């Protein structure tokens, strides 16, 4: 059909432009990170710099053992955190999507309330240090990040509006208990949203540096974002206090290093992207086939 053809081409055109707009700034980040520092200052930013240099990466890899260890910690925290988070989130979302569950309103409210009100950082800090997460891997997993009202409500809505009730009914008639229904029906049918939320959760864990800042004092337990954030913050802060210091500023890394630091942080995500994305696409297809 001609109409279909034209429509496909229009969509391709628009989406190609959009994805270009999404990727190009990232490319600039990469290119500035390998641009020679002096070229950057004198010629300005460019996709086609006159002189390249790996100086920024040399600066970063001078701490390579720390960096590898930190990557390891991030990966472990991300995997455990995403898995646990997704599990507890799905576990609470599913009952809330069941029609006629007594107390559903108040419980949803109880969840939603946490989205808006919080007691600030200090009580949370006291709470989690009190529970002994300091300098353990759990410091990255539990505080703040495991799940949130946003995810719970999104998954609940998805369950409620996209899984036909008749399926539950028939399963119940077959004598399946709630747990079995959850694992054999709700989880597979909810795959598209679970994969989506899982991906977001994964990114949240990967990009988090605050838990590292608050709960880690042992440098061998720093995650990659915490390490990079430290480098970055130290650059910024030294700059803003320099009326007091002169010798401290001598070897401060500059623009290209900041770019390199940023790039190192997202690099693994870029590498893992195709794999994540495969799951992701599978999830979507699964959902589509179901109808």
């Amino acid at each position, binding site marked *: 059909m001609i109409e279909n053809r034209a429509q496909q081409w229009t969509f391709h055109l628009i989406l190609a432009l959009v994805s270009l707009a999404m990727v190009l700034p990232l490319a600039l980040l990469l290119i500035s990170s390998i641009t020679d520092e002096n070229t950057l200052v004198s010629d300005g930013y460019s996709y086609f710099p006159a002189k390249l240099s790996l100086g920024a990466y040399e600066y970063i890899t001078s701490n390579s053992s720390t960096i590898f260890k930190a990557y390891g910690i991030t990966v472990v925290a991300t995997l455990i955190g995403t898995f646990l988070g997704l599990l507890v989130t799905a576990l*609470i979302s599913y009952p809330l999507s069941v029609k006629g569950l007594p107390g559903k309103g108040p419980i949803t409210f109880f969840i939603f309330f946490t989205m808006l009100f919080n007691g600030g950082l200090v009580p949370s800090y006291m709470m989690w240090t009190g529970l002994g997460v300091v300098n353990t891997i759990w410091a990255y997993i539990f505080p703040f990040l495991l*799940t949130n009202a946003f995810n719970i409500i999104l998954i609940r809505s998805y369950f409620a509006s996209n899984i036909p009730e008749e399926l539950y009914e028939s399963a119940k008639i077959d004598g399946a208990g709630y747990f079995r229904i959850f694992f054999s029906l709700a989880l597979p049918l909810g795959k*598209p949203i679970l994969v989506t939320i899982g991906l977001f959760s994964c990114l949240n864990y990967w990009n988090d540096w605050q838990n590292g800042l608050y709960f880690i004092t042992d440098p061998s337990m720093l995650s990659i974002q915490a390490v990079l954030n430290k480098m970055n913050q130290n650059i910024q802060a030294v700059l803003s206090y320099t009326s007091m210091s002169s010798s401290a500023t001598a070897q401060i890394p500059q623009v290209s290093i900041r770019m390199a630091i940023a790039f190192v942080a997202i690099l693994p995500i870029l590498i893992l992207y195709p794999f994540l994305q495969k799951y992701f696409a599978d999830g979507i297809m699964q959902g589509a086939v179901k109808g």
Partner: protein
Amino acid sequence: MPLYLMMLPCAAYLILNNYVPMAGIVAAFKSYKATEGIFGSPWVGFDNFNYLFKSNDINIIIRNTLLYNVAFIVINNVVGIALAIMITEIKHKALRKWYQSSVLLPFTMSMVVISYVVFAFLSQQNGMLNNGILKSHPVAWYSDPTWWPLILIIVNCWKYVGYGTLIYIAGLSVIDRSLYEAGAIDGAGKWKQIVHITLPSLVPSMITLFLLSIGRICYSDFGLFYLVPQNSGTLFNVTATIDTYVYGALMSAGGIGRSAATGLLQAVVGFVLVLVANALVRRLSSKDAMF
């Protein structure tokens, strides 16, 4: 009963992570003294709220916070839905995956990094725009407020649109294909199918996302409004929000009381709005209401 059991782990987490620290809210009404602790410190009534309202710029700050949030909600959702529909319509599998992943790429970058990238484009001395495209009419980006509303909306959309897009893709993936076939047989064109089949099926996701974002209408992304405009004072009128203002004002005279007070205020406003919106939704279509 097993249903309540399922909810237990997550509920326990929310209590620990969110409800217990909420006790810190009392700090909003206290003059904090280290020797007395949060609970023993003297009560000061609403004193901690005063500093916010004493400001002559309070109107600008509130206007900016609310208007930007409204703009973000509308634009991100419209663009997100449009992208989601286009992406699911694409038949070429590899390209569809590519489009789908590229929209989420900016989401992996932190605002700090994004502020560097924006600076690379807008820098008056070295930036790509002034050095390249606008060579004859350079714009003083960081001191001319004219373009900033647009710039902030674009940057925000660029970073966050992938999030909504993926949620909507998940929502679209379960639409019954047979509906479209039926539509096609009835002679409905692609456009008609989108309007009559696709969009209505997204309504539940749209309502959920809307209710969730309206609760955060008094909050703003600190990085977006502070780091991206390089904290340039001349842009104050178009970039100041509650969060950036509080940060600036508290740098000199800190105190957990005032930050707790501001947070409480932001939460209460969002809370009231959500209750109102939720009541309206319930009246219109009770099954889409959140609670």
